[in-house]
């Protein structure tokens, strides 16, 4: 049974990137040791394991470190190829499509969302909202194309893109309470809205997603801190 191997995940509970790694491990039924990092006081192990970026997540497998969430998810899929679900499809063209949309989520979707909620000016946030609408529309089309009528980007079962997008689910849910924004509005993106419900309800997924209340609390705390800093800086 998988789990005899030494698997350790260095993470931070609210990070969507860390959640991706947890989702991959969970979907493949792998046991691992989770280590919560204090990002204001990073451990020796984290600094040693990710000397280039000093960031979480880091997956340490039998003492060897793998960094960057998309690299980690692909690694989990390949190192444990015989175990549980296969996250990446076997056909080279479908793999290329899956990688394309995963990259799109990081290169376009996330920055647009960040801009729309945390942009410093009204203009920036409005621009972010516009960009978000375009990216969600593209992703809705991607889901249609990749799923071919089946429940997930991966088809009958969740796959790579489901995991990469799934990492954002906690914050997607928290977004409504925090910013009054529904990133996957059923009116604008019905497939994605249904996907979010469906993926979030999976047995391997729902215990792993951070609680919305905790995320909202964290975001409010961070906002307060930034506001205090800005006020202090004005003196």
């Amino acid at each position: 049974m998988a789990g005899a191997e030494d698997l350790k995940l260095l993470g931070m509970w609210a990070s969507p990137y860390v959640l991706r790694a947890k989702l991959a491990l969970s979907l493949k039924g792998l046991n691992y040791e989770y280590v919560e990092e204090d990002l204001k006081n990073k451990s020796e192990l984290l600094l040693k394991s990710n000397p280039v970026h000093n960031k979480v997540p880091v997956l340490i497998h039998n003492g060897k470190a793998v960094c960057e969430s998309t690299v980690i998810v692909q690694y989990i899929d390949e190192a444990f190829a015989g175990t549980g679900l296969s996250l990446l499809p076997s056909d080279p063209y479908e793999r290329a499509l899956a990688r394309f949309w995963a990259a799109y989520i990081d290169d376009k979707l996330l920055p647009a969302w960040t801009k729309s909620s945390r942009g410093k000016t009204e203009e920036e946030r409005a621009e972010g909202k516009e960009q978000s609408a375009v990216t969600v529309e593209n992703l809705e089309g991607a889901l249609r194309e990749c799923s071919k009528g089946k429940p997930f980007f991966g088809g009958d079962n969740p796959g790579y893109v489901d995991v990469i997008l799934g990492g954002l689910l906690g914050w997607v849910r928290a977004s409504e309470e925090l910013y009054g924004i529904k990133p996957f509005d059923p009116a604008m993106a019905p497939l994605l809205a249904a996907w979010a419900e469906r993926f979030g309800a999976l047995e391997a997924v729902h215990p792993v997603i951070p609680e919305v209340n905790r995320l909202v609390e964290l975001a409010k705390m961070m906002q307060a801190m930034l506001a205090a800093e800005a006020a202090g800086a004005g003196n």
Partner: protein
Amino acid sequence: MAGEKKGLQLLDFWVSPFGQRCRIALDEKALPYEYLEQDLGNKSELLLRSNPVHKKIPVLLHDGRPVCESLIIVQYIDEAFSSSSGKPPLLPSDPYARAQARFWADYVDKKVYDCGTRLWKTKGEPQQQARKEMVEILKTLEGALGDKPYFGGDEFGFVDVAFVPFTAWFLTYERYGEISVDKECPRLAAWAKRCGERESVNKNLSPPEKVYEFIGTLKKKFGIE
């Protein structure tokens, strides 16, 4: 489907290091393809249809089906033609080695082009900052190379393909950044030279002076002094 061309076509722009990654991968695998130079100021129907999301080059068309994003294209070439080309794979087979290769290719993507652009686009404090960063980036990559002949080890591989087109930009970085790759990163400079001896690289990289000339033209065009 009517009009779908068989075989491989590459939509590209002559000086693009991202496009060159694909050309190098195709040549390493000895795969024949049709090169289609794109006018980026007046994008073709084919480009807009093949990459509607980003409208960017490079795009690889395989029997009419588009693959976009240079590193995704390189992986596709490696995987779709693994048995037929008879050439060694660009990505190793060991999962951990693959993860390392992906990490460093991602590092090149995140760091080199952006910092390089700031080197020639900015002046004063931002340029100084970019200069410092570029040296750090190159030293980090040199550290990853270590004593190996290639990033891939004994064989030219994925990270080598990802990074080598930027070696044609070293001259431009050196002139705008007032840095010397030879002095700061001698092992990296040696690696660049070693790669340059490969036919796939030699044939596909832009001559460094041409890159420098191109940047000069861009600067004038955008009114950057």
